[in-house]
């Protein structure tokens, strides 16, 4: 299905870009006229995925994070991609409270938050090649 609108954002995996990335997606999704709540949910989900790319995907090195977003009628699609270490056991990674970095005080709730705030979350990953998180959310325009 052809997108009504589409954008792609690439940025360095620096933590200062987390707030930048979520505000870019929010600005793009704003054309669907979401409620403040829906917009906050999208921002939070994007923040989780981007943070994961930065701290898990790339750890200490600086890589490139790519976000692709599409608007298709009243649905927003968001892909967050890194070319980092990848996830060896996706099922385990998606478990609530599971984190591979408890020493960083990670809560292990990132995937759970994404799943709760978005309608659909798919994870594609290959060890040594990187990870793509694919999320969609339909905006309920009837207020």
């Amino acid at each position, binding site marked *: 299905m052809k997108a009504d609108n589409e954008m792609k954002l690439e940025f360095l995996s620096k*933590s*200062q870009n*987390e*707030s930048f990335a*979520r505000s870019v997606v929010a600005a793009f999704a704003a054309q669907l006229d979401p409620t*403040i*709540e829906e917009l*906050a*949910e999208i*921002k*939070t989900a994007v*923040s*989780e995925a981007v*943070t994961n790319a*930065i*701290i898990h995907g790339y750890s200490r090195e600086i890589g490139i994070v790519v976000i692709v977003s599409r608007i298709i009628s009243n649905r927003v699609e968001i892909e967050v991609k890194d070319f980092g270490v990848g996830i060896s056991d996706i099922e385990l990674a998606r478990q609530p409270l599971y984190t591979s970095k408890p020493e*960083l*005080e*990670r*809560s292990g*709730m*990132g995937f*759970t*938050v994404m799943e*709760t705030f978005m309608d659909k979350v798919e994870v594609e990953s290959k060890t040594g090649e990187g990870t793509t998180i694919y999320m969609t959310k339909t905006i309920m325009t009837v207020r």
Partner: protein
Amino acid sequence: MSIDFEYIDRLLIVRINGDIDHHSCEEIRSKIDKEIIAKNPKSILFDMGQVGFMDSSGIGVLIGRYKLIADSGGKAGMINVKPQIMRLCEICGLQKIIKIYAGKKQAVASIKE
């Protein structure tokens, strides 16, 4: 992001001003921990009235501070939590650990009792 500290006896009230995400977490953590080490409060109350955004990185930081305080028998609470952040706390089960109070008075009374 900035943090203000206030005391009511040995209850430390921490007001965080700004977004709480992975980027701001390290600074938030180190500032609060320095304060805890220096002043040795008994309990801790987070004033979230000036926090417009928080994600699960923030959950990690709050739980981390809670543990520090709980280890020496103190309690932790939160006030002025915006609806959006309330939902995040529910999803992550944070209110089971750090109670959310309706206002400062109730929080102070309950934590100090």
